[in-house]
């Protein structure tokens, strides 16, 4: 049954996130924006994810506006027929695509994110510090 809310998608993605991320937090504030999820992988890279049920272009815009603070960035969406189009647009900004497959009941990495080169170090420090302190929700 298709998800009704973004939080349903977020909940469904949690087992996958638990597996690939060392530590993460939801709704991480960065300046006047909020990133849906920011996590550290086991190599201490910063991963940002925006979840969207419909407006995936908006998710790409949100990722792009925070890209100088992330090593890798992904949009996470439910499975759709036009996935190639999304992958193509995501690749323009170096973003990866995570897709929730209803049949398999799991997240699939449809496209890997490219690693960002130059980053704004004060933002990186801030995010690492925020997540290490457990962030707002102290997840995982």
């Amino acid at each position, binding site marked *: 049954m298709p998800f009704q809310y973004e939080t349903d998608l977020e909940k469904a993605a949690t087992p996958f996130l638990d597996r690939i991320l060392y530590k993460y937090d939801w709704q991480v504030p960065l*300046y006047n924006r909020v990133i849906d999820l920011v996590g550290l992988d086991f190599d201490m890279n910063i991963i940002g994810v925006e979840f969207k049920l419909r407006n995936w272009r908006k998710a790409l815009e949100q990722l792009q506006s925070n890209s*100088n603070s992330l090593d890798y960035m992904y949009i996470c969406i439910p499975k759709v027929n036009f996935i190639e189009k999304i992958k193509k647009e995501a690749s323009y900004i170096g973003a990866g695509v995570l897709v929730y497959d209803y049949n398999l009941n799991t997240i699939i990495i449809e496209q890997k994110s490219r690693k960002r080169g130059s980053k704004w170090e004060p933002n990186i420090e801030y995010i690492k510090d925020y997540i290490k302190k457990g962030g707002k929700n102290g997840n995982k």
Partner: protein
Amino acid sequence: MAISNGNCLHIMLFGTFNENKYFLGDYKDSFDLIGFNANIIAHASAGMAAFISSLQNKSYFIDPQTYGFQQPLKTIMRKKNDSWEIKSSIKKLAERYGSLIKQKAGKSRLRPTQLSSDVINEVCINVLDFEFDIIQSSLKDDKKEFLDYDYTSLRPQFLISPYFYIEPDDFDNEIDANIKFCNKSTSINKYGIPLFAEMIIHKDIISDDKFVDALIEKYKECSVDGFLLWIDEFSEINSRKPFLEKYISFLGKLNTFGKPIINLHGSFLSIILSGEISLLAGVGHGIEYGEYRPVVPVGGGVPLSKFYFPNFYERVDYHPDATDILLEKNWAKNKKTYLSKVCSCNMCKSIISNNVQKDFQQYGELKKSEKNQKMYPTSEAMDKSRRHYLNTKIIEYELCRNSTLEDILKEQKINKILSDDIISHSFDHMNRWLLILENFKRKS
């Protein structure tokens, strides 16, 4: 102080009381003229009089803001305990401006057709008297004693006739009322101070030659000493080339009167026009804002940290645009690169060391509000950002005052090339301004 086109006057518009320090401190001698809104003067006349006296002979003017009574009521009212009441500063102003305005303020909008000749006479007398007298009469006697100069020097540089906002819907009536205000004000101006007409104009007027020609024809009848111009929500950065051309064409037509013109809200393009080109006498802006302004204020929202890029004459969002540009261009590599490529104003010199990213962050620091949990720029970041902005604006005015158009164009070309390959933010106005100025140079 002489006000004539080509003077490149730096006009600073006073916004709020917490901006006092920029007018009294390091920047005291940097501005030629300060503009105050009548409502702020009416609201705290004694405090403003003390403030203006402490500026010591700094030239100023008071915008009577009579258009405010013509605007939707909501703009001059505030909600208190589920009911609307007129803002106290506007109420005080209405009480000074005369019976009709006092009677209508906060109850119904003032329309140009409601003005009998008696009302026009009364409004003009009261408005000019307010502008001329309010500061002198509000200065407390103990302050007067300590002034080492004649307190009559507290008079404004010029007076401004009452006026309506001119928009296409009621153009004829609004223009007619403005002309009557100007003529009456001229005839009763016995203060020995020049009288200016203020034109607040809707953008659609500027775009339409028929309106412009009619406006010019009408204002021919006025014998005012100069013009203040405010084109509603006109951003020189965001406007397309045809509109910018219309703006310059309008200034050219208004210049046939041979009177000084001040653009109250302008960016670097207008500053250039107030230099060798001599289409304007000066340009106004506020402390890090006010290069364009809507007549009906759009309030609310969380203020964003911004950074003024001197090479591109634009304030951009601190995150991500400003930081992205520095990364893209590799301008945050070290102190030397930053100071030579981005900015070497006193503020930047004082905060940027070899850890450019960390130091630059001082312009973008935010703090979470206890009240609503939203992120706001810290007062330190705002202060630094404002000082960087003011330092840069002062350099812009000096450049346009002392350079030929040819020299300015050379610099514009270099900066335009520099902006062309930036991905993170589009500085399209650089190309538009260059095309317009080159075209202007060719024609002249």
